[in-house]
């Protein structure tokens, strides 16, 4: 085991800013992309449903 306490883990041997800056931004990016995609899909589906019901009403 590399760490003797949580504080030591978070300190990353003095490189906390660099290590957590890297992992933090990466984690953020990998969380935001799926959320944006979910939004894109739900918007497409919403538009499709609207178009479809408009078409059905006009028939």
């Amino acid at each position, binding site marked *: 085991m590399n760490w003797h306490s949580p504080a030591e883990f978070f300190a990353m041997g003095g*490189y906390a800013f660099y290590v957590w800056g890297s992992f933090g*931004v990466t984690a953020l990016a990998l969380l935001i992309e799926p959320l944006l995609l979910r939004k894109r899909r739900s918007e497409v589906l919403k538009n499709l449903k609207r178009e479809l019901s408009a078409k059905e009403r006009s028939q």
Partner: protein
Amino acid sequence: MNPKLIAWKYASPPYFYPLAGKMIPWFVALAVLLGIAGLWVGFFVAPTDAQQGEGYRIIFIHVGASWMSMFLYLVMAFWAGIGLSFNTKLSSMMASAVAPTGAMFAFLSLWTGALWGKPMWGAWWVWDARLTSELILLFLYLGFIALQAAIDEPRRADKAGAIIALVGVVNVPIIYFSVKWWNTLHQGASVSLTQAPSMAKTMLLGMLLMALCFWMYSIAMALVRVRAIMLERERHSDWVANLEEVRS
């Protein structure tokens, strides 16, 4: 049905759409499991580096992100090239679906590289061949995305994008071999296909697990995005109108 016909069948959006939908949860699950394993090995199993202390742990995402940025570019160019030569719609949609994830990994490669360069080299950025060619890769992705977004007619956008994607392919070997061809501040490859790795086995394992995690993540995201693109582009077709998620 013979295998060739099956391949053609799944190359059409009405068949690929549900197939992709079934595959997504598996790739997400693999990405999560590999990510947990990779982070565990990276933080708790891999030892402290003799020269760089704990700062080296950036490697666990930096290398995977850099590999994916290059690999996804090749995948994007491959699908764009197939779409251009055989006029297959789904191939071009795949190229468009891969691009944003590739751009994100190129950005992460530069970002984590800057955060690694500052404490180790004393500079966030240097105009070194490796860093510069990776920056060009990011611009190629952004150029591809912007060009496609600027053209209203999807098939024309596909063709224009394919030209950028294919011309830009030359940059990928330049990035990869830059540390050999030029005298760069960036270190040489830690892992190569021809030599035994020059690092502790557990460090290598953590790196590979994270790279695999990013790979599975990329497949999942590309499939989610290509499904959205299929719905957008084929919104007037019957198969879209008959989908359960559109009907309900």
